[in-house]
């Protein structure tokens, strides 16, 4: 590691003072671009770098101009850095940690000497939107151009081996949420809490207090009531049991029905509240002038933050450019710290200034230039001076009055724009207020209130008084839901104008409107002249406000420029839409913990211990096979096998209304199903598309037991719930037993012999025929037995309580040992069912398949009074089928077409026409043939033995239609 000097100096650190948040007793070290720097706990990355004299923190997006601290509040793009694996970190708000590795982003080869800044030389050829007008021809070269453009764009890096962090979420419920913990926010919280409401108070900073943390008046005698405000407010909030404070927490968005979202580091808060008070403060607005992006040009509030919170002075020779008393506050503040305030440049008339510090500053010899403004920041990598000029009677700049001032810090204090993103999201309306030159909220929905600087009130005592009142209104609303119209909105106290509507000083160098995207005022004018005149088109074409600052620094200035260029009023110009999140938020925080766990059956470990290869099936992991699926299938055909079918959906329906429900949701008939019997059924949606299939058993008088496909279990439960809750639920109770019961299918000619060893129940076919359900104790566990035949063999589905599942499974395996039992997986089951030409919903059918076309007309009773899908199926039945699902056998038994392959027919020109496709296919070990199911045109499908061709790897292979099941077409083995 390289160290700049042996002694790590911090030339810009001031002497200790009250209110700072750093712990000077401890010094930690971190690196920036490989150079080591000291910091104190409490420092941000940017404050520590500024203390050490580092001014350039980043390079701009397009021209790679050096950029330094501007807002120091996490809202501008100028301090974005890479910290370890984390890209685009705002250095001005990220607390520094020992050993942090901080790097500059998007520089080549280095931050100091970034060759990409040479792009500025050609900037006249690269105005706004230049890329739409260039690289068009020759078109072949576009990929090459694009490759280059792509690699000079982008900011931070994503490292491929970045570990997935740990994140979580918390739900909060409250009466009143206060977004913003400045004086207005705290006061509103007190008002609401005293009104009996439970209050959550959020602030993005490490401590409450907002601007009072760093704008402490110097002379407490001049405004004595302010100086004690913050401690008093904090103490009161601390004493108030109804207030819960969340610092370092940004409220990200407001969603319908007062559903809010906030983030604190890796934790996302999801908050339901009855009422919201927006106290998000204001953004200080930059001024647009030549070289206004030079490091050393900073907003007044940024300088005060650095000075008071971190004891860091970013420059020793200061020129202050202002249009209000705030600039004078900053001047007095710096003066009191012994800083040489080189000049105050105030665009107002002398008599417009009513700062209590004026006399003191003037008497101390600080030059004041009234009716002046700044023309240019002088310097190449940092401010070396300021060029100022007089504003003439027509409010224009008089070039003859230009003079240069030496300085290394230019403080811009021109005014504020309310941070109303959150208020906007609630559906609140804003209007431009000419008197204070701000867009202010004028209305908000019931239960939403805006206070403090966000509503245009700057005077601290007014903020506190208004916000307290609104806090109690919010509490009342939360209690009763009544809207007190009179106090629903803080209207913005009329006070001396704090915001200048002079946003741009013309000149002959680059003047940046948008720091994120390097858009200048000339770019804005050009875009408008080209026709991108509305604020929305201007935004999309220039990409102003689409960068990391999301408009915090540029929106207001852009609206003014747009209004002027079009000769519209600001109100006519309007604003763009504020969208969540108010502050960029990590994917990790939004995602939280992974809430989609894999489901496993109680037999899972047994499967693994016995060599199962697992596969994902819906939400579940299931054994695909245990080594040799063909052998597993043959084992079932010849002896006996056991498969874990626990993921099957299992629903219990109870009550007198069940038969009618079954009639409506299945396509076949159910009212005549006697107790102890099982029937196969197909469910369709209103369009007649197959949703699911399965069996349903009439268990006893008023109880039915339904199974669904494994992947459809949740969907069908929800589907039934939907209908039950939509008027078909009378006399029905529905319970999801999917996890309560585990299920195994014992299949094969020896299955009865195996089961007989474990139960006293008479299993003879006469007592327990095919398609029946019986209760029985298996290995002393009460089970439900269903005699079914998906595999085509004599088989019993054993449904047992999941807690005993492993016991029953092992008992079955043990009992079957003498018969050569073996477990079989999904693959063997697929072979077995395909040999029987049984379909799998979702594989052989898709989101357009109806049961008539799927060759299951036998399961559709169109003469039933009504059922889901009937009208569509009636119509399909009347008009004829377009496709039919049938079995096929390949001419060559060794060629198994992959599922999904297309069935084609060459047309007259030799072009292939698609006439169908293969849904299922396997090599059948029983038949030594390649078999499958496919969709074909009905006229072809209806001819047993008709040949057709499948396109396999580009070659056409012959197959023939087969109508009967491939194995045991008469189903004798099922009924053994």
């Amino acid at each position, binding site marked *: 590691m390289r160290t700049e000097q042996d002694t790590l100096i911090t030339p810009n650190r001031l002497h200790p003072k009250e209110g700072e948040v750093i712990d000077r007793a401890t010094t930690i070290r971190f690196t920036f671009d490989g150079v080591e720097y000291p910091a104190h706990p409490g420092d941000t990355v940017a404050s520590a770098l500024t203390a050490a004299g580092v001014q350039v923190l980043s390079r701009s997006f397009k021209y790679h101009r050096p950029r330094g601290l501007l807002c120091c509040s996490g809202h501008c793009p100028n301090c974005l850095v890479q910290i370890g694996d984390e890209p685009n970190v705002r250095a001005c708000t990220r607390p520094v940690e020992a050993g942090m590795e901080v790097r500059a982003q998007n520089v080549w080869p280095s931050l100091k000497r970034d060759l990409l800044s040479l792009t500025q030389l050609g900037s006249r050829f690269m105005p706004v939107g230049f890329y739409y007008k260039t690289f068009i021809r020759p078109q072949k070269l*576009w990929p090459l151009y694009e490759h280059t453009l792509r690699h000079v*764009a982008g900011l931070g890096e994503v490292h491929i081996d970045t570990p997935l962090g740990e994140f979580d979420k918390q739900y909060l419920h409250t009466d009143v949420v206060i977004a913003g913990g400045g004086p207005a926010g705290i006061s509103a919280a007190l008002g609401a809490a005293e009104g009996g409401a439970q209050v959550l108070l959020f602030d993005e900073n490490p401590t409450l207090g907002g601007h009072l943390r760093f704008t402490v008046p110097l002379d407490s005698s001049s405004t004595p009531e302010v100086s004690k405000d913050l401690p008093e407010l904090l103490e009161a909030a601390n004493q108030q049991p109804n207030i819960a404070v969340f610092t370092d927490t940004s409220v990200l968005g407001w969603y*319908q029905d007062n559903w809010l979202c906030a983030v604190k580091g890796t934790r*996302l808060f999801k908050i339901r509240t009855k009422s919201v008070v927006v106290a998000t403060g204001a953004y200080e607005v930059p001024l647009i002038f030549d070289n206004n992006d030079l490091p050393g040009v900073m907003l007044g509030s940024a300088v005060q933050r650095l000075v008071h919170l971190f004891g860091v002075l970013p420059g020793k020779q200061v020129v202050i450019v202002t249009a209000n008393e705030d600039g004078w506050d900053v001047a007095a503040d710096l003066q009191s710290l012994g800083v040489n305030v080189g000049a105050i440049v105030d665009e107002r008339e002398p008599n417009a200034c009513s700062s209590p510090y004026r006399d003191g500053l003037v008497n101390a010899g600080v030059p004041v230039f009234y009716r002046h403004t700044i023309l240019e920041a002088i310097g190449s990598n940092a401010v070396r001076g300021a060029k100022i000029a007089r504003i003439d009677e027509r409010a224009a700049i008089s070039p003859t009055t230009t003079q240069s001032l030496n300085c290394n810090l230019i403080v811009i204090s021109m005014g504020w724009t309310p941070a109303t993103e959150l208020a906007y999201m609630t559906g609140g309306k804003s209007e431009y207020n000419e008197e204070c030159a701000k867009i202010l909220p004028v209305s908000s929905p019931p239960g939403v209130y805006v206070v403090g600087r966000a509503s245009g009130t700057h005077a601290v005592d007014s903020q506190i008084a208004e916000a307290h009142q609104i806090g109690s209104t919010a509490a009342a609303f939360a209690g009763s839901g009544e809207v007190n119209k009179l106090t629903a909105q803080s209207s913005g106290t009329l006070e001396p104008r704090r915001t200048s509507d002079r946003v741009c000083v013309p000149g002959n160098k680059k003047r940046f409107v948008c720091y994120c995207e390097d858009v200048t005022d000339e770019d804005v004018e050009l875009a408008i002249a080209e026709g991108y005149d509305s604020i*929305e*088109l201007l935004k999309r074409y220039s990409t102003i406000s689409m960068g990391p600052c999301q408009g915090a620094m540029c929106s207001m200035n852009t609206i003014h420029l747009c209004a002027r260029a079009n000769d519209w009023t600001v109100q006519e110009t309007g604003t763009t839409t504020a969208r969540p*999140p108010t502050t960029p938020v990590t994917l990790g925080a939004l995602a939280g913990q992974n809430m989609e766990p894999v489901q496993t059956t109680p037999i899972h470990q047994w499967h693994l211990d016995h060599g199962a290869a697992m596969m*994902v099936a819906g939400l579940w992991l299931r054994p695909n096979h245990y080594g040799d699926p063909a052998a597993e299938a043959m084992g079932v055909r010849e002896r006996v096998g056991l498969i874990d079918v626990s993921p099957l959906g299992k629903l219990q329906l109870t009550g007198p209304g069940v038969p009618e429900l079954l009639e409506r949701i299945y396509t076949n008939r159910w009212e005549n199903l006697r107790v102890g019997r099982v029937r196969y059924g197909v469910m369709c949606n209103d369009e007649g598309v197959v949703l699911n299939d399965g069996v349903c058993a009439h268990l006893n008088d008023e109880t039915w037991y339904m199974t669904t496909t494994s992947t459809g279990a949740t969907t069908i439960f929800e589907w039934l719930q939907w209908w039950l809750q939509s008027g078909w639920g009378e006399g029905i109770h529905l319970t999801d037993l999917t996890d309560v019961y585990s299920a195994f299918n014992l299949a094969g000619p020896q299955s009865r012999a195996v089961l007989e060893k474990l139960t006293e129940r008479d299993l003879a076919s006469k007592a327990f025929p095919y398609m029946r359900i019986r209760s029985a104790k298996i290995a002393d566990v009460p089970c439900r037995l269903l005699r079914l035949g998906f595999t085509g063999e004599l088989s019993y589905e054993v449904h047992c309580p999941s807690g005993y599942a492993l016991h029953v499974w092992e008992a079955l395996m043990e009992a079957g040992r003498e018969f050569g039992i073996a477990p079989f997986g999904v693959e063997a089951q697929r072979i077995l069912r395909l040999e029987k030409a049984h379909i799998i919903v979702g594989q052989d059918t898709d989101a*357009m398949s109806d049961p008539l076309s799927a060759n299951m007309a036998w399961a559709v009773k169109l003469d039933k009074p009504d059922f889901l899908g009937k009208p569509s199926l009636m119509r399909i039945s009347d008009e004829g089928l377009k496709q039919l699902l049938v079995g096929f056998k390949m001419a060559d038994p060794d060629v198994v077409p992959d599922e999904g392959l297309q069935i084609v027919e060459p047309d007259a020109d030799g072009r292939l026409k698609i006439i169908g496709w293969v*849904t299922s296919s396997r090599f059948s070990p029983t038949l030594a043939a390649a078999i499958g199911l496919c969709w074909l045109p009905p006229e072809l499908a209806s001819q047993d033995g008709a040949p057709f061709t499948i396109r396999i790897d580009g070659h056409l292979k012959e197959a023939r239609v087969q109508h009967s099941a491939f194995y045991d077409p008469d189903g004798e083995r099922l009924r053994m």
Partner: protein
Amino acid sequence: MLPTKQMSVQLLRQAFNSSQPPPRMWRSHELKERYDVVIIGGGAHGLACAYYLAKEHGITDVAVLEKSYIGAGGSGRNTAIVRSNYLTPEGVRFYNESVKLYEQLSDDLNFNVMFSQRGHLTLAHTDGGVNTMRRRAEVNQIEGVDSRLIWPDEIKRLCPYLDVSDHPRYPILAALYHPPGGIIRHDAVVWGYAHQADVRGAHIHQNTEVTGIKVKKGKVTGVETTRGRIKTGTVLNATAGWASTITTMVDIKLPLTTIPLQACVTEPLKPFLDVVVVSGSLHVYISQTDRGELVMGASVDPFSSYSMAGSLTFLEGIAGHVLELFPALSNVRILRQWAGICEMPPDYSPIMGFTPINGFLIDVGWGTYGFKASPIAGKTLAELIATDKTPDLIAPFRLSRFEENDLVGEKGAASVGH
């Protein structure tokens, strides 16, 4: 010969003589009393139609009416993915023609729409998913579209940041790889078409909302707008998410459900994701723009609405799903979310062409797949307007298919359609 100067020449001229105002991309006009054709909707479809009407058929007396600014609807809200690897032969043929037009579009419009054919991957996480991808690949190949099934090693090569490890919940088993698929600068498509339509004489009227449509004896005679009345015999409804509000004016009911579709974008990052990645099972599609942002979207919202406010549920869901695929992205920040409005027909295929009302044409039902069809939709509808005949390419998408029970079946893909 090009009707306008090379854009790059304009750029040079501007560079050396910035005092002269640049030519306007499109002009403002007074509403004329009568137009031959009125196109409702100033999105990519409507503007493309105006352009092709002029360019291919010499029909220039055309008004494009936009209630807001051009491209304010779905054209500026989609995730800018262009592809043709659909499931049905009809869909593949149609979108393939669109991709071909997109490939020439920068040259054609003299405006760089930045079509970036960086390849499109649709991931399969289950064996059923693999079969669906194979089915699409086969249909695509038979229709002459570059599309094939690839396996994890090749997926990893194309997209190193994807987690193709054997993780249990959503393993990446295979992908449908479609090299000609990619992304485009969607607003530029709108502006380019608007510019060239304007150059050829079409009138683009922004901030002009249609409030009524005049029909006499089953034939369109005019439209009423917030800026006055227009007489015309031909009206094309190209209003995507708001199409049913327009057809309601002439008492035509369309089988459409109106649903929001949401998307979001991250802060800019250095390029690391070359291809477009889509996962149907995870309901997510993601790509990296030339500016470095990740643009991502999900499936449509679970319920009907005209709200474009966006939801937290969407953000949480998409973040989780993106991290399933790209675990290295947990520190990447979402900058902005937004929503658009889709109108979805039951078979997930558009409805284009004639209606029972003479002179009232539709270009609707564009669900989640409208933007990528803009050039071909505009071109075929221009042909239909000019010739009064339905081009073969869009015959499958006629309105009468619902009465004839001849649906197109793109829904069979049963997955997210991007």
